[in-house]
């Protein structure tokens, strides 16, 4: 078990310089399509909720609730169904790290 963890850490170090940047860019690129409604980097100028700086867990819960129909919406239930749970995590991570204006 310890060895396994060590391996993970080592491989993490080995790959982080290459893979890390691309993973971040994928999350950034995913998030960018949301800006038409939610503003650049999630800083909405009104109407739609500000996503910049939003708590990660709260973001994921809201998206899952939109997807399941637990939270009613005009449009977000449709968008939420188009994304995977992994993508919710990526989006949550990206938006939570953005500075709220």
């Amino acid at each position, binding site marked *: 078990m310890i060895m396994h963890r060590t391996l993970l850490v080592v491989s993490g170090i080995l790959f982080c310089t290459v893979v890390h940047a691309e993973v971040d860019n994928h999350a950034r690129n995913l998030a*960018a399509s949301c800006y*038409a*409604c939610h*503003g650049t980097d999630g800083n909405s*100028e*009104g109407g739609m909720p500000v996503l910049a700086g939003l708590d990660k867990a709260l973001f994921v819960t809201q998206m899952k609730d939109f997807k399941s129909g637990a939270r009613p919406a005009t*449009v977000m239930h449709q*968008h939420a*169904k*188009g994304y995977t749970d992994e993508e919710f995590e990526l989006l949550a991570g990206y938006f939570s790290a953005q500075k709220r204006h």
Partner: protein
Amino acid sequence: MSFSRRDFLKAGAAGIVIGAFPGLAFASSELIKKKGQRVVVVGGGFGGATAAKYIRKWSNNKIEVVLIERNPMFISCPMSNTVLGGGRTIDDLTMSYTELKKKYGIKLIKGEVTAIDPEKQTVMLADGHLKYDRLIVSPGVDFMYDKVEGLNESVANTSITHAWKAGAQTVLLRKQLEAMPDGGVFAISIPKGPYRCPPGPYERACQVAHYFKNNKPKSKVLILDANPDIVSKKGLFTAAWNDLYPGMVEYRPNALVTKVDVASKTAKTEFDDVKADVLNVLPPMKAGAVADMAGLANVDGRWCGVDFLTYESKVHKGIHVIGDAVSAALPKSGHMATSQAKVCAAAVIELMQDKQPDQNPTIANTCYSMVSGNEAVHVANVYRFNVEKQAMVAAEGGGVSAKRSELEGAFAGYWLKNILNDVLL
């Protein structure tokens, strides 16, 4: 040493003199001397302006961006039908390009591209040329006037408008509606798809009906659709026509307009002649003329085939095409143009840094249509890259509004504010 605009123009003039000598590569001046890595963007609409901004933003300003646009101001086509309905003026939809220069250091050139040389990686303008490492073409659409006998650009500018690019024609069409007597007929002709903004013509019918209802209640809206059925948001539009404008809107499918008579404002279809008081004809559309300059429109001679990971043209390496001009199973909308622009911007930066672009682009589209003064309906979809098809494919769960609402009407306004800020500020 800093160059003033005056110095810059003098340098340009000197270049022309030097270029007159034989044996030099170009007979024109280099408008802005290329030093480091440079992307030139042609067309400053939703797609081009977004690509320009995001290349600067995501490259930490390392890549020089030159944006070429022929119009002095940005005018939003989305929501421009509300100018006809009276909810907005064209000024409400007009924005300046100056923040792109001030905030992001984008070099703006007001002008028209006259030629593209993919081999020499050069674009020509009337007064000089620009070299690029990568070129992004965002030409929007142009109109195939030759498909409608009697129609041409001059007629469109003065009489039978299309008003399918927001601006002077939008204002003219509104004036024509204002001048029309009560009891008159407004007829709109819709071309076969694909065309820019699939729900737009039906939204326009709603906005004109909204204006008539309040000002000229005896008037009619006649929709001549070359398509066999309503292309987008069908149930929502027919509900709006029946509930909000009963007896006012008439829809005719399979009504392909092939000829117009300008003097009598008559549209001729295969079956009959339709005389209108205000005639609005959307000609068939194709990729904007800039695409033709490098032979980029390789699909039916109308649209541009691209690699959806990078939006690089299937015809020329190093040239990318985004927005309405692209051949894709994606709606030709403002939101789609900005989403494509961001995928393209990210990929261009990565290609210029010898990195692999994102292999799983996933983008969203939300498109609102105003069906009255304050109510809207939407269509929304997520699209993701499909490796087998090498295409963007609609993901699960997309759809339209359950019903029109004032809440969505408010959202439509906020959508406009947020997307314009995202493109230009």
